């Protein structure tokens, strides 16, 4: 029973026809490809008329398969699938081959381009004969959403959804929500106080009836798929009874153990063993750090337990696993600062007056350890000259190739704050100043006006090795001023390193748990860099904020809101379609060798111990086909990309190559066969 194949070759105006002889390709298809009953070329296949042509041919000519040779299937596969559907043909009996992007646009010689187009059409037509009708699948969407990360992007996403009446579970790893923004002093370019604009959002989230807030908690495991994820969350032991604690703060006040706060204060200040990271923390429930607590060190003290008016201290509290069911997940896990000790020539960690940007934020912050006084590490000297070094660990193939995006503006902000608070001479060492958002360039202009000494040059080293008398006691910044072409040395009192924004240390592991991928740098990969920046290749998992790539506060807020909008759309629709491109195992032929079992990163393959066969859980399968090619017995079938389809495609693609010799009935044996 032969298939009836229709082949349509698009001119795309002159985009294709200007290089490829489309009529010749159509003629080739009708004359040389078996089972092709219709072959046409047409000006614009994607136009209404082009689509109608396909529909009508399906009806009139009884086409059972359709090939469209035009642009990329990523652009118009859906269009022509719809056309097939309209004509009464299962949409998965269509194949599109790309003779524009992959052919007419990239080849100079018209003859070669036409020949290649023929091969592509031949491959497609051979393949399409083996395609099978498939039906898309639909599942219900659970209206609850999980947001991972309580920084500004996660908070925005949470509030958008909660305000729209949807339930949200917000998970934050640290004791309080707020993220890095809570650490900042001022925000550029408006210089409004970071805490003033952030804390209202934090308390709104803390009190929202639709939000279940889990702080000091981490994502443990994600199973299921779009619409129905099942999530395990590890609630780390606070050692404080969350329900009994009133947040009075007596325990913190009376705790005798002080330790350096490397988290919120970036090592610039101290905190207690039982602590709230900062006064405006949400929730207002302290956390006991068992590593510094005297009780956990030598079973003494118990001050907090004795003094707590509501008896909320629980030394024996253990981690707890909380399980929730959600329909969608928004990942907004943010970033970590670059470790500046990785660039030893900048002296961080060795030279006392070299600071990281985050250290300077705390130094500058009125709520910080020096109450906002900018002084050197001796605690009293006000710097008279300060060097700010851009691109530390960014735009550097030895560390991170990307531009961290925000450092230029943050450096300008620092320069302004320094001038305002200390009147110091500020040098800003840059490669390029990047101020490409609203009002950013104006801010740069303002700093030029304020007298910042901008030096164009990547700093080579920061040293205490003096060469001249005026360098004694100073920290010397050595660099080429590329605008004068001279090597210069700048003795200063303080150096601030604008370290790169890096992906969270566990970004890859979290990505693996959720089934989303990272770029080389470690930022999560979006579904489309321009047109779908907050979705991922895994349906139902969205990303927002810096975990997707370096960005500033406004952009993080936009992405948080955008991700929420995408999720809200899913919830409103209530159902979600799943492409039927999945693997399946012929269980009767499976011998249970278990080679395929760890091929699947989505755990879509399970092993049935009783029957000793492996099986694909269709709802989890994403259709990559890796297990199909791993199966040593060849009993895994990959729908829409099965072996017979691909073999036929290879054969079609090589229609003009020398065929294999030595098969019975062909040339050589013909000499002796009698017929």
């Amino acid at each position, binding site marked *: 029973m032969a298939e009836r194949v229709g082949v349509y070759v698009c001119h795309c105006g002159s985009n294709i026809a200007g290089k490829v002889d489309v009529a010749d390709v159509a003629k080739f298809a009708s004359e040389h490809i078996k089972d092709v009953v219709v072959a046409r070329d047409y000006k614009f296949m994607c136009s209404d008329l082009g689509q109608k042509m396909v529909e009508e041919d399906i009806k009139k000519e009884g086409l059972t398969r359709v090939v469209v040779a035009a642009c*990329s299937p*990523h652009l118009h596969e859906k269009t022509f699938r719809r056309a097939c559907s309209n004509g009464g043909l299962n949409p998965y009996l269509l194949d599109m081959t*790309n003779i524009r*992007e*992959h*052919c007419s*646009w*990239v*080849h*100079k*010689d018209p003859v*070669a381009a036409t*020949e*290649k187009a023929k*091969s*592509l059409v031949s491959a497609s037509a051979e393949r399409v004969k083996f395609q099978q009708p498939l039906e898309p699948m639909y599942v219900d969407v659970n209206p609850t959403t999980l947001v991972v990360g309580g920084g500004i992007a996660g908070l925005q996403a949470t509030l958008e959804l909660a305000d729209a009446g949807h339930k949200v579970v917000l998970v934050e790893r640290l004791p309080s929500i707020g993220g890095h923004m809570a650490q900042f002093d001022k925000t550029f370019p408006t210089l409004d106080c970071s805490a003033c604009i952030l804390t209202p959002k934090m308390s709104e989230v803390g009190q929202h009836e639709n939000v279940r807030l889990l702080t000091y908690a981490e994502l443990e495991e994600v199973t299921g798929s779009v619409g129905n994820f099942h999530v395990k969350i590890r609630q780390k032991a606070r050692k404080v009874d969350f329900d009994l604690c009133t947040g009075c703060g007596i325990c913190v006040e009376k705790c005798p153990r002080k330790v350096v706060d490397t988290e919120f204060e970036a090592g610039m200040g101290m905190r207690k063993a039982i602590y709230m990271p900062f006064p405006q923390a949400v929730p207002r429930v302290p956390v006991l750090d068992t590593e510094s607590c005297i009780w956990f060190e030598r079973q003494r003290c118990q001050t907090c337990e004795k003094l707590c008016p509501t008896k909320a201290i629980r030394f024996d509290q253990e981690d707890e696993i909380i399980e929730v069911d959600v329909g969608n997940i928004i990942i907004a896990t943010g970033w970590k600062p670059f470790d500046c000790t990785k660039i030893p020539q900048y002296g961080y960690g060795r030279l006392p007056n070299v600071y990281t940007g985050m250290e300077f934020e705390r130094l500058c912050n009125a709520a910080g350890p020096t109450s906002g006084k900018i002084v050197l590490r001796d605690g009293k000297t006000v710097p008279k000259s300060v060097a700010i070094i851009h691109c530390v660990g960014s735009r550097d193939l030895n560390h991170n190739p990307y531009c961290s995006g925000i450092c230029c503006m943050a450096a300008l902000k620092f320069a302004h704050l320094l001038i305002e608070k200390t009147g110091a001479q500020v040098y800003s060492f840059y490669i390029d100043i990047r101020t490409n958002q609203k009002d950013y360039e104006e801010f740069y202009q303002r700093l030029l006006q304020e007298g910042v000494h901008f030096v164009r040059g990547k700093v080579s080293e920061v040293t205490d090795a003096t060469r001249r008398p005026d360098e004694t006691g100073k920290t010397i910044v050595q660099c080429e001023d590329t605008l004068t072409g001279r090597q210069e040395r700048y003795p200063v009192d303080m150096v601030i390193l604008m370290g790169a924004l890096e992906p969270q240390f566990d970004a*890859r592991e979290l*990505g*693996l748990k959720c*089934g*989303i*991928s*990272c*770029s*080389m740098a470690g930022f999560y*990969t979006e579904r489309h*860099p321009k047109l779908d920046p907050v979705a991922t*290749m895994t349906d139902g998992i969205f990303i927002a904020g810096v975990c997707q790539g370096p960005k500033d506060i406004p952009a993080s807020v936009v992405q948080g809101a955008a991700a929420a909008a995408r999720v809200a759309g899913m919830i409103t629709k209530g159902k979600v379609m799943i492409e039927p*491109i999945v693997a399946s195992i012929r269980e009767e032929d499976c011998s249970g060798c278990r080679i395929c079992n760890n*091929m699947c*990163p989505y755990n879509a393959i399970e092993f049935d111990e009783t029957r000793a066969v492996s099986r694909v859980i269709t709802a989890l399968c*994403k*259709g*990559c*086909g*890796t297990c*199909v*090619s*791993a199966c040593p017995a060849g009993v895994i079938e*990959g729908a829409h*990309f099965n*072996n017979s389809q*691909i*073999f036929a*495609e*290879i*054969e079609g*693609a*090589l229609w*003009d*190559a*020398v*065929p*294999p*010799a*030595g098969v019975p009935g062909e040339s*050589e044996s013909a*000499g*002796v066969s*009698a017929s």
Partner: protein
Amino acid sequence: MSDDSFEPKIVGFLCNWCSYRAADLAGTARISHAPNVRIIRVMCSGRVDPTFVLKALSLGADGVMIAGCHPGECHYIEQNYKAMRRYYMLQHTLKAMGVEEQRVQLVWASAAEGQQLADAIDKLVADVKALGPLGWSKNWAENGDRIRALEDIVNEHKEALEVPR
């Protein structure tokens, strides 16, 4: 061996998410490259079965390209590593069978790397051109002596092989 008129026939298996899109991008950016690679789309480089490569070579391809997302960037998280493992295993075997390693190349190209993919295609085509045709079907064909021997036998046993019609 490198004959200017020789235009290698090459089959390229490109993953749907990165390298196929890189080829799309090469198109939108009009980055011209050699027309010898006939592209077959697979969902993931992890779908590329060594059988596909052998099939292509046995059907007359002079070279094969396998292209996927960069290691660590796979849209299916880590399946391109499996493609890489299979690639090295296949290369190990092909080498032992006398297929030059430049004929089968594994390429990483992200969706943003149209230029890189075009360069990789040009390089593969140049490499294969330098090697000359693979001609595996010719490789199967027996030498002239087989034909002569058969002719001898046919002549000797004419009667036995004659079919009465």
